[in-house]
């Protein structure tokens, strides 16, 4: 099994609470791994710790990626009805590394491909504030793809979606994994989605974690 990330003997605590004690696991590369656990088990804290370990290397985390190669899609974003940018402009915020204000020809081409892959081409001129929940999540995903990530971490992104949009988003992710050579970590509570789409499940409970391979689907 090819792995993209290995955690060894990690002890993690927040004030007044030990979240993990001697936590060890690996995340398989080019697969969709769901991270599950009760509320307050420390899923998001663990992800933030992993992201921070890129800046401040930790002896407990083995990860050979640059910050650009990991993109995190947070659970909450304050995009209200009044949000001014259209979907295309919002997605292109993901090209943040260049020193010139406008997009180069290569970037514009990549943007078009990403919009097409995430089914946003038809609505790219629409203001993001007026888009549906599913469309917004696809736009967040598309923005993350602009950085050409190798590892994508999605934090409970289906929490506020209806049944149809949830399945659309997960199907889209499954298509993108081979196409873009991605590894996806998907934090979720949703058993139906996990059973249907996950290749692996990392269960976090009792301060430990257990990686389970799901049956081939």
């Amino acid at each position, binding site marked *: 099994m090819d792995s993209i990330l290995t955690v060894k003997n990690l002890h993690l605590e927040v004030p007044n609470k030990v979240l993990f004690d001697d936590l060890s696991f690996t995340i398989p590369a080019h697969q969709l791994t769901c991270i599950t656990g009760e509320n307050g088990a420390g899923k998001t804290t663990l992800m933030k710790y992993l*992201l921070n370990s890129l800046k401040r290397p930790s002896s407990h985390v083995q990860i050979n990626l640059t*910050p650009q190669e990991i*993109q*995190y*899609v*947070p659970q*909450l*974003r*304050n995009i209200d009805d*009044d949000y*001014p*940018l*259209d979907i*295309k*402009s*919002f997605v292109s*915020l*993901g*090209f*943040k*590394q*260049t*020193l*010139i*204000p*406008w997009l180069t020809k290569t970037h514009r081409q990549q943007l078009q491909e990403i919009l097409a892959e995430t089914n946003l081409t038809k609505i790219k*001129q629409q*203001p993001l504030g007026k888009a549906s929940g599913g469309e917004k999540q696809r736009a*967040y995903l598309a*923005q*993350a793809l602009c*950085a050409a990530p190798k590892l994508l971490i999605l934090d409970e992104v289906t929490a506020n979606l209806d049944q149809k949009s949830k399945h659309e988003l997960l199907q889209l992710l499954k298509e993108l994994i081979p196409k873009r050579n991605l590894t996806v970590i998907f934090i979720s509570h949703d058993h139906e989605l996990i059973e249907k789409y996950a290749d692996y499940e990392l269960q976090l409970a009792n301060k430990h974690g257990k990686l389970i391979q799901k049956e081939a689907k």
Partner: protein
Amino acid sequence: MFAYDFMRYAFIAGIFIALIASFMGVFVVARSTSFFTHTLSEIGFSGAAFGVYAGFQPLTGMLLFTFASALFIGLSGEKIGRREASISVFSGIFLGLGILFLSLSDKQANYATSILFGSIVGIDQNNLYTLVGLSLILLILCFTLFRKLAYNSFDTQGSEFNQQHNKLISIIFLVMLALTVSITAQIIGALLIFVLLTIPASAAKYFGHSLAKMIGLTFIFVLVGIWLGLYLSYLTDWPVSFFITAIEASIYGLALAKNKIFNQYH
């Protein structure tokens, strides 16, 4: 009208103010830090008053006070600058300090009016050179950091996780805002710069949905306001500030009306 030097300077100054206000205004509105901008202009006022009291250039005092506050807010987290209570406290204290410094110095009261309301028709060639020089520094910063500032302003949560040195970018933005307030307050007044940094960009977001369109429209709205305001003031002898504020407010009113009508038919 252009036979007068001060009128020509004022029209040229208008172009540069519109350039800065369009870039900075769009970011200010996206970050919803309009009221911090207001506080910053009051802090600028008290800095200028301090300069007068301590015997150095008002501009230096302004830069000193606004930079210090921008760094303070930037380091302690921008959320503080959005909290209503802390805005009231800061506004109050700095307005009070401004008045104190002015009364301690022996300048007349009309000096306060000129810092608060500015006098775009009162600028000379040196003021214009300072404005152009500082504007160029600001515009070069805007240009090179544009994509990072845009990500940081338009997607606070996303950039917090996915942009390197994101906190530093926030601090640089606040320092740039402090510089904007200080350079423009000299010319159009501490109170009016708040109008130009917030109203035109707020109106532009109802007409354009890409960064380029929003910045372009904001530039036009600010420039129309300043130039038309100057012209009307020249005709009537009423204060320029009044006309500029009234024009910007009308543009915003039109934007709201357009948005309402558009929403009803779509």
